[in-house]
C-alpha cells in the first residue's frame, strides 16, 4: 500500500487542513519539526526510554483463557494497553508529543479530553516535564469521569469545564482549538486522537503504532504466526490505528474496528459516523461525520465518554472505503454486558471503550471459527467507569 498520508496530508480524499488561517503556520512548523525528529537518533532514544521506563512498555500480550473457554471457539488474546502508566494507550501519544513540544521550545500545553484518559495522560507528561497544562473537558464528561478530573488536578493541570453545545468531547475539542488560535505562538496543542488537521492524524498514529509493532513481534515470537483477526474500538480511532498500522500490509490479518452504536443504529443516539454518517468537515479534517441535511453536526451518544464523538479519524474513513478494515458497531447495553463478563472471567476490568471491542466478540460468538486467533486491543482500564456502571445498575 502507498504511503499514508500523501504530501497534502490526505488519506485518499480524507484528511487535509480545514482550519483558520491563524494556525496554518504552526501546522507547517509542527510538520517540519516532526519530520526532523523522526530521523533524529536522540529523539528516538529519548522516546524509547520513556516508553520503557515511564510507560512500562512493552505492554503484555495476554492469552484470555477463560474468555476463550466461554466463547468455545476462537482463541482470544488481549493487547494490554490498560497496563500502561495512567491506564490507557493515550500516554504513548502524549509522551511523543510532549517531546516534540520540548524540541520546539513550547512550554504551554493544551489538550481536549472526553473520557479523561487523554487529559490525564497529558497532565502526567506535563508534570514530568514541568510544563503548564490546560485541559478542556465537557461539563457532562466532568461528571461522568470524576476520578480522572481529580487526578489531573493533583498532577497540576488546570481542568476547564466546557459548557457549550453537548458539553462533551466535540465541544471540548472546539474549545481547545479556540485556545490554540488565541495563544498560537507559545502553545503546543496535544491532540488526543488520530483526528484534526494534518499532520496530527499521522503523528498520533505513528506514536501509537508501537501497539501494533509489539503485538506483531510478540505474537510471532510466541506462536510463530500472525493473528487472524484484530479487533479495536473506534471513537476518533487512535488505539485502533495504533494496533492496525503494523498489519495494514498483512492481507491475511483481518482488521475490525468497532464503533459505538449507543442506543442502536436505528435511533439517532449513536456515535457511529462510518455506519450512519457521510464525509464532512469538523475540527480540521475531511472525514466521515454525522450531520443533518444543512450540515449541522448531530450530537452523538455513547455510554462511553471516549467514543462519544460525531466524527472519526480520516485514515479510518479511507480504510473503510477501500475495505481494508471492516467497521462494525455495538450498543451501550452490549458494551456493558461485555464489561461485566470480562471483569468476572479474566480479573481485568476493561474501559467502557475497550468493552465495545470485546462486545463485538461476545455478542455473536458463532461468527468466529474455532481455532481462530483473535487479538483484542484492551485500550484502557475501566476503573474510571465505575460511576457510570453503578448509575446504570440503579
Amino acid at each position, binding site marked *: 500500500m502507498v504511503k499514508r498520508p500523501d504530501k497534502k496530508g490526505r488519506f485518499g480524499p480524507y484528511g487535509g487542513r480545514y482550519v483558520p488561517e*491563524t494556525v496554518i503556520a504552526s501546522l507547517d512548523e509542527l510538520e517540519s519539526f516532526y519530520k526532523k525528529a523522526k530521523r533524529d537518533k536522540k529523539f528516538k532514544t529519548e522516546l524509547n526510554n520513556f516508553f520503557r521506563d515511564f510507560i512500562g512498555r512493552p505492554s503484555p500480550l495476554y492469552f484470555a483463557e477463560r474468555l476463550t473457554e466461554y466463547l468455545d471457539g476462537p482463541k482470544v488474546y488481549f493487547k494490554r494497553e490498560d497496563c500502561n502508566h495512567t491506564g490507557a494507550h493515550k500516554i504513548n501519544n502524549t509522551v511523543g508529543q510532549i517531546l516534540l513540544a520540548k524540541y520546539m521550545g513550547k512550554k504551554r500545553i493544551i489538550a481536549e479530553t472526553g473520557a479523561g484518559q487523554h487529559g490525564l495522560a497529558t497532565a502526567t507528561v506535563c508534570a514530568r516535564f514541568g510544563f503548564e497544562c490546560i485541559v478542556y473537558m465537557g461539563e457532562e464528561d466532568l461528571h461522568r469521569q470524576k476520578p480522572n478530573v481529580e487526578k489531573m488536578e493533583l498532577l497540576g493541570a488546570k481542568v476547564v469545564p466546557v459548557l457549550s453545545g453537548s458539553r462533551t468531547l466535540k465541544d471540548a475539542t472546539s474549545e481547545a482549538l479556540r485556545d490554540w488560535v488565541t495563544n498560537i505562538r507559545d502553545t503546543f496543542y496535544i491532540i488526543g486522537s488520530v483526528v484534526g488537521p494534518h499532520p496530527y492524524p499521522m503523528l498520533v498514529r505513528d506514536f501509537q503504532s508501537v501497539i501494533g509493532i509489539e503485538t506483531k513481534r510478540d505474537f510471532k515470537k510466541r506462536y510463530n504466526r500472525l493473528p487472524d483477526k484484530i479487533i479495536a474500538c473506534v471513537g476518533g480511532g487512535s488505539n485502533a490505528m495504533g494496533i492496525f498500522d503494523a498489519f495494514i500490509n498483512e492481507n491475511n490479518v483481518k482488521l475490525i474496528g468497532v464503533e459505538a452504536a449507543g442506543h442502536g443504529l436505528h435511533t439517532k443516539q449513536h456515535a457511529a459516523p462510518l455506519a450512519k454518517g457521510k464525509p464532512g468537515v469538523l475540527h480540521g479534517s475531511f472525514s466521515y461525520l454525522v450531520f443533518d441535511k444543512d*450540515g449541522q*453536526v448531530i450530537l452523538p451518544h455513547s455510554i462511553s465518554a471516549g467514543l462519544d464523538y460525531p466524527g472519526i479519524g480520516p485514515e479510518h474513513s479511507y480504510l473503510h472505503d477501500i475495505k481494508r478494515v471492516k467497521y462494525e458497531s455495538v450498543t451501550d447495553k452490549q458494551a456493558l454486558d461485555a464489561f461485566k463478563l470480562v471483569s468476572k472471567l479474566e480479573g481485568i476490568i476493561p474501559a467502557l471503550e475497550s468493552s465495545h471491542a470485546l462486545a463485538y466478540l461476545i455478542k455473536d460468538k458463532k461468527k468466529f471459527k474455532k481455532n481462530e486467533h483473535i487479538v483484542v486491543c484492551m485500550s484502557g482500564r475501566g476503573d474510571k467507569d465505575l460511576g457510570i456502571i453503578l448509575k446504570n445498575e440503579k
Partner: protein
Amino acid sequence: MKNRITTYLDSLGKKKLLVPYFTAGFPTMGMTLQYIKAAECAGCDFVEIGIPFSDPLADGPEIQYASKVALDNKTTLNQIFELTQKVRKHSEIPLLFMGYYNPFLAVGVKKFLQKTADSKVDGLIIPDLPIDESTEIRNLADKQNISMTYLVAPTTEKKRIQTINNLTTGFVYAVTVTGVTGSGKKFSPETDKYLKMLQKSLNHRFVAGFGVSSPADAKRLAKYSDGVVIGSKLIKIIREAKTQKSSVTDIEKFLTGVRKSLS
C-alpha cells in the same frame, strides 16, 4: 470578475469600508432583515450574513451564542437564501455569506454556489477553508461571479500572503489578532506594523476584523487598512438591547457612530 463587490471597490476612492456581520436567524430571521436595513441606513458598505453552524470553532462567545440561538430557532439554509432575496427587493448593497465549510458540503458545493448566485449574494468568507483546500469552491465561484474573500492572519508567512493575494477575488480579510472573533485583545503597535506590511504586500483592498468594538477601534485600524468588519460587538448590542425593536435603533446608532469615525 464583475459583481456588486468588485464594482463597488473599483469606485471606492479613499472611502473606508464599514462591514457589519449579522448571524442569520439571530434573534429571528425577521430581525436579521431589519438589521441589514439599519446597517444600510447607517452607511455601511457591505453586509456579512453569518450562516450559523453547530461548531463555530473560529468564533468567540458572542457569535457562538448567536449561532446557537439561530439553530435553536431551527434556522435553515433555505430560509437564509430567502432572506437575501428579500434584501434584494429593496437594496443593491453587496452581500457576503460568512460560514463554515460543512454546510457547503452537506448541500453539495456546486449546488450551494448555484443557490448563492440565485439569491444574489456576491461573496463568500469561509473561516475554516484556507486557500490550500479551496480550489474546487474557487473555480465554481469564479463561474458564478462570486468573490472569494480569504483571511490573512498575523502568523501568515510572507510568501503565503502573496498566494492569498493572488487567489482573492474581491477583498482580503485581515485578522488583526491571533484569536477568535470578539477576542477583546488590545490592538498594539504590532497590529499597526502588521497592517502597514499588508498595505505594502496586497494589491487588493483589505478590511481588518476580529475584536473591533468601538468607533475608536475602527478609526485606529482604518488608518492602515481599507476599513473594518464588526461582528461580535453587534451581537452584544442586540443581546443588551431593552427590546427587539430598540435593538434595531441601537444597531443603527452604533454603526452611524462608527461610520462617522471613519470619515
